[in-house]
């Protein structure tokens, strides 16, 4: 059996890649994808820990995160579209009517 720590290290790496992606990429869609990657790395963590502890709390949590992530994408893409109606770009550096 693969030790739990392997899964935890892998998911920590995926989470870190996602977080760095959010910070360095300028395209709002890519940022959204990076956030999804972070959420999925959390899912991997939860499933590994759920097997480790032998209870189902972690797996239930994963289903909730999947549902939330789907809702988040639906809302997020709608917001991006509403925003694109005002300007032809989804580059977040060009979105600065309000000071960051």
């Amino acid at each position, binding site marked *: 059996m693969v030790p739990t720590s392997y899964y935890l290290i892998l998911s920590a790496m995926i989470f870190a890649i996602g977080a760095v992606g959010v910070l360095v990429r300028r395209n709002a869609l890519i940022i959204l994808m990076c956030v999804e990657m972070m959420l999925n790395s*959390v899912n991997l963590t939860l499933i590994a820990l759920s097997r480790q502890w032998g209870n189902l*709390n*972690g797996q239930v949590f994963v289903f909730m995160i999947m549902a939330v992530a789907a809702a988040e994408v639906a809302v997020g893409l709608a917001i991006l579209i509403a925003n694109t109606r*005002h300007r032809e770009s989804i580059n977040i550096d060009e979105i600065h009517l*309000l000071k960051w």
Partner: protein
Amino acid sequence: MNIAALTANLHVILPEMVLAAFALLVILADMLRQDEEESRLLPLLTLAGILAAMAATAWIWNRPVASYQEGAIADGFALGARTVILVAAGLATLLSMGYLPRINRQMGEYYALVLLATLGMTMMASATDLIVLFLALEIFSLALYILSGYYRKNPRSTEASMKYFLLGAFASSFFVYGAALLYGAAGTTQLREIGNLLASDHGNPNLLWPGIALLLVGFGFKVSLVPFHMWTPDVYQGAPTPVTAFMSAGTKTAAFAAFVRVLMEALPAQQIQWGWALAVLAVLTMTVGNLTALRQLSLKRMLAYSSVANAGYILVALVPGTAQGSKAALFYLLTYAFMNVGALAVVITLEKIDELDALQNRAAGLADRWPLLALAMSIFMLSLSGIPPLAGFFGKFFVFQAAVEGGWTWLAVVGVLNSAISAYYYLRVMVAMYFHEAEEPVQPRRWGGLSLSLALTALATVIIGLYPSLWTGFLSGLGG
């Protein structure tokens, strides 16, 4: 699992069920309505839902403390926080009545989203399980992302919505990763059980400490602590002002209530470590918030940075990890809900049509033309700067008292110094209202709901200040 187990103590989540039912009712009513005239009924239906949820909360108050499925609890602290959130939602609905028809025709989904966001917030204030906590957080966050971009024709509003969404989703993933690692350290998602387990065997430190740190980041974003506050001024400024009012009071109350519960039920054994982390964050938050607020010209940005600074004061109460501190935090949130919503209501009256914000010079000369409005704004500004005998003074007093009695005197001193700095930018608004000449005649916008909420918030700010003991008796802290 049988039906009896599922319905046992179902009354604990009665306010949430009422809110959900009314949210669906609002959507249905919006679909069935014949013409624009009938859409005036939607805010009244929303208010009815909020009042019904308040009645349900009051009804639960008289019953013994109970927990539904170990996921939500109805203790005094949760019920107090729920009440504050419902008050904020009610006031925001009053503010939206005359505001919405100007910015966007479709209104049904707006009020449904307000009710759903309220549901998420009250749920978060009573959650005792990490899974419920996360779900509640996302329910109100998703609703607020949409609400802050509700003025779709205005690029600032959609921009605020997008910034809020991207940073909010980013922060949520930190929060949920922290929750996952805490589950890994303790093997359960129930806060009390986590606390019991960690008190006896301390868990796996490689999972526990990163977990706590990530949770702090997630909560820090939601309550806008420095350095996770970057979204606050932009979103507060770009969102429709009633939404800003709702967001500032409601989100803060929900997130702080959950924050207190996680710290005191799941992590009491680690108080020494998180106490210091919170103390550092509190000093940073108060100082940066107040110093940045000093040089804001826009009223909404000023109130946004003031909201950051206020999050710092509330955090001071959390540092010692005492029951007294949690009660002080809740009392502060109650006073903050009234004075901040009131201040934003005045901003609404000063806004130009089609604009989402008002500069400070719009308030110039207000006292000559509209003395009552200027008086109300003075009450809110004096209360926010903590001058007795208004509500804000006692909020700060109890918070700093809790810090001193918990052995954090230096932190209370930093807080008092900060509140002296903050007086400068609050009083500047009053100076403009009373001593400056108006550059252009301002015709304040007004409607029944706006006047009503201004009167209610101003009265509450004065009454809480005159009789603070009435209110401290009805709120209760958490554990000990």
